[in-house]
């Protein structure tokens, strides 16, 4: 059993309510921070903890906080990014649904550190029932003096508001989220200026992921240095992983980042192995945008070392033989899955979600989708594979926001590791409609479940 910092109390009955949450030690971090610490001291603890953004980019959160501009007389804002939309990722939803007060507590402490008197939770529109849960928790917190004016006599005022999006993956990008919060189309802004200087309503703004802000609670409770002792290297603390695909136990798991990928997939504590006794073919370990890895490169690095569930190990080998921790959306594909079809559905997703502002993404995502659909339907040409490679190369790095990269990487990785499967589709236009390519030879060595 690994350390649990966020989900420790997730199964306590009634933990969603204020009374139970408080009885279980909730809001201690607010007491500690507001009564005994200065805002800068809170930021300092977060820096010491080594906490990295849990939304996908993995940027050190304490550093992000310290970039926040603090011009005299200009209000600042903290915005919680709850626009969880990366395929494979559903961890923030779990946190908000079952432990709403943990997020609220993290938000109060973080708002105090950043000097945000009005803090916003921007939640994806499809999670339509969760704002009610969060607003209920906010009302309870306010009724008990944890929100409002002069909290705990500290002189700090804070209100938290929930804002619902309306269906746009792009609003998970922080500047698109800010635009959306301002009531506009979710077009990412051109940077600089960065939100830390000019964010929502042109005021200095920090945008953090739900899990990141929830993690501030244990950091303050135990101290940044203690938190940093959990995990390994620059992967400190615990990480929520949402596991899905062809596994026995899909769901949200909290891991300390010392366990191996193999343990995560096969142990009963986590995914419980591949469903129906099938064999592992491939995995997208950090949400649909990160490179897909064949089984052999997933469990072991190219150097033959064990691969672990942390930032460094998952990206070992770069994009050539590694992937990324990303948002923690862990998608497992068994031997019966078709890589071409899977890549096609992801390409369709990115085409659907492109805001259309800059030309490489607007035009390139649709082009890739069409070619992939053709290959999947047995209508592809051999030259299409190289064409796909060239298109993704011309999108990557050339767009306003990272959606271009997010659309390019899955296609690049699928071709890099599974080119033979693409070629098989082209060479066998009839057969590919009736059966899948299977494991071929890249899935070795495999751990075969007993």
């Amino acid at each position, binding site marked *: 059993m690994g350390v649990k910092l966020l989900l420790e109390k997730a199964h306590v009955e009634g933990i969603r309510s204020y009374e139970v949450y408080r009885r279980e030690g909730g809001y201690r971090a607010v007491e500690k921070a507001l009564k005994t610490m200065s805002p800068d001291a809170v930021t300092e603890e977060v820096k010491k903890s080594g906490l990295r953004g849990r939304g996908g980019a993995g940027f050190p959160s304490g550093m992000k906080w310290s970039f926040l501009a603090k011009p005299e007389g200009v209000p600042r804002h903290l915005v919680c990014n709850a626009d969880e939309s990366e395929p494979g990722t559903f961890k923030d939803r779990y946190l908000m649904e079952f432990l709403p007060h943990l997020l609220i507590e993290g938000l109060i402490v973080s708002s105090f550190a950043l000097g945000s008197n009005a803090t916003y939770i921007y939640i*994806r529109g499809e999670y339509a029932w969760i704002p009610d849960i969060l607003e209920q928790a906010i009302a309870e917190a306010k009724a008990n003096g944890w929100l409002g004016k002069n909290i705990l006599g500290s002189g700090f005022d804070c209100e938290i508001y929930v804002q619902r999006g309306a269906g*746009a993956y792009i609003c998970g990008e922080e500047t698109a989220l800010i635009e959306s919060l301002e009531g506009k189309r979710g077009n990412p802004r051109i940077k600089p200026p960065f939100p830390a200087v000019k964010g929502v309503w042109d005021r200095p703004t920090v945008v953090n992921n739900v899990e990141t802000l929830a993690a501030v609670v244990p950091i303050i409770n135990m101290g940044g240095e203690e938190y940093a002792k959990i995990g390994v290297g620059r992967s400190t603390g615990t990480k929520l992983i949402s596991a899905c695909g062809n596994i026995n136990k899909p769901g949200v798991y909290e891991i300390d980042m010392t366990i191996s990928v193999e343990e995560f997939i096969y142990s009963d504590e986590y995914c419980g192995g591949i469903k129906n006794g099938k064999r592992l073919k491939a995995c997208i370990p950090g949400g649909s945008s990160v490179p897909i890895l064949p089984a052999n490169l997933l469990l072991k690095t190219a150097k033959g070392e064990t691969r672990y569930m942390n930032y460094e190990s998952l990206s070992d080998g770069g994009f050539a033989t590694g992937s990324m921790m990303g948002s923690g959306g862990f998608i497992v594909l068994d031997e019966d899955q078709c890589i071409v079809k899977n890549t096609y559905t992801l390409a369709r997703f990115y085409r659907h979600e492109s805001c259309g502002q800059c030309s490489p993404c607007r035009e390139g995502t649709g082009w890739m989708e069409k070619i992939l659909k053709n290959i999947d339907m047995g209508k592809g040409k051999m030259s299409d594979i190289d064409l796909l490679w060239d298109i993704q190369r011309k999108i990557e790095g050339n767009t306003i926001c990272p959606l271009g990269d997010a659309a390019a990487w899955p296609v690049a990785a699928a071709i890099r590791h599974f080119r033979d499967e693409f070629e098989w589709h082209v060479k066998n236009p009839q057969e590919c409609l009736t059966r899948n390519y299977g494991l071929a030879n890249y899935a070795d060595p495999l751990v075969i479940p007993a």
Partner: protein
Amino acid sequence: MEGLLLSLFTFHFSLFMVPFSEEKLAKVQEIIARYPEGKQKSALLPVLHLAQEVHGWLSAETMDYVASLLQLEPIEVYEVATFYSMYNLKPVGKYLFEVCQTGPCMINGSDDIVDYIKQRLGIGVGETTPDGLFTLKTVECLGACGYAPMMQLGKHYKEHLTREKVDQIIEECRKTAGQLN
């Protein structure tokens, strides 16, 4: 002439647009108060959600009304309403089935679920049953990948879908609709 214009105006506003109730107008004021002075445009997404609750979709008249509530130009509302996929710009059935079809749902058989719903309701994707009860839509990732295949129905998610479960959901909808009538 004036009378004609007036009646045209009333007709224009009455067909697809019901002005907000007192309760809703109060809610709009409460939402606007969340933002700094003069930044009422920020209330646009939440107010469009409120407006969609009335008819299940947003007509141009409704959007013009929202624009007047928030002191915006109508085009600012159209730009936003057409950007986000959850705003229905055409009428939809009483029950809107939005089935996820992205990667993780696809590998868990969402194609089969979509086909089954099509067959059960006798409609294609994007269509509404003649009785106006059901509309079927396919959508991209809804963030329930661990509970695939799944769909959104109104405010809630229906997860771990099977053919049996789809039957059950359709039956429940029909029953509720019958009780409402």
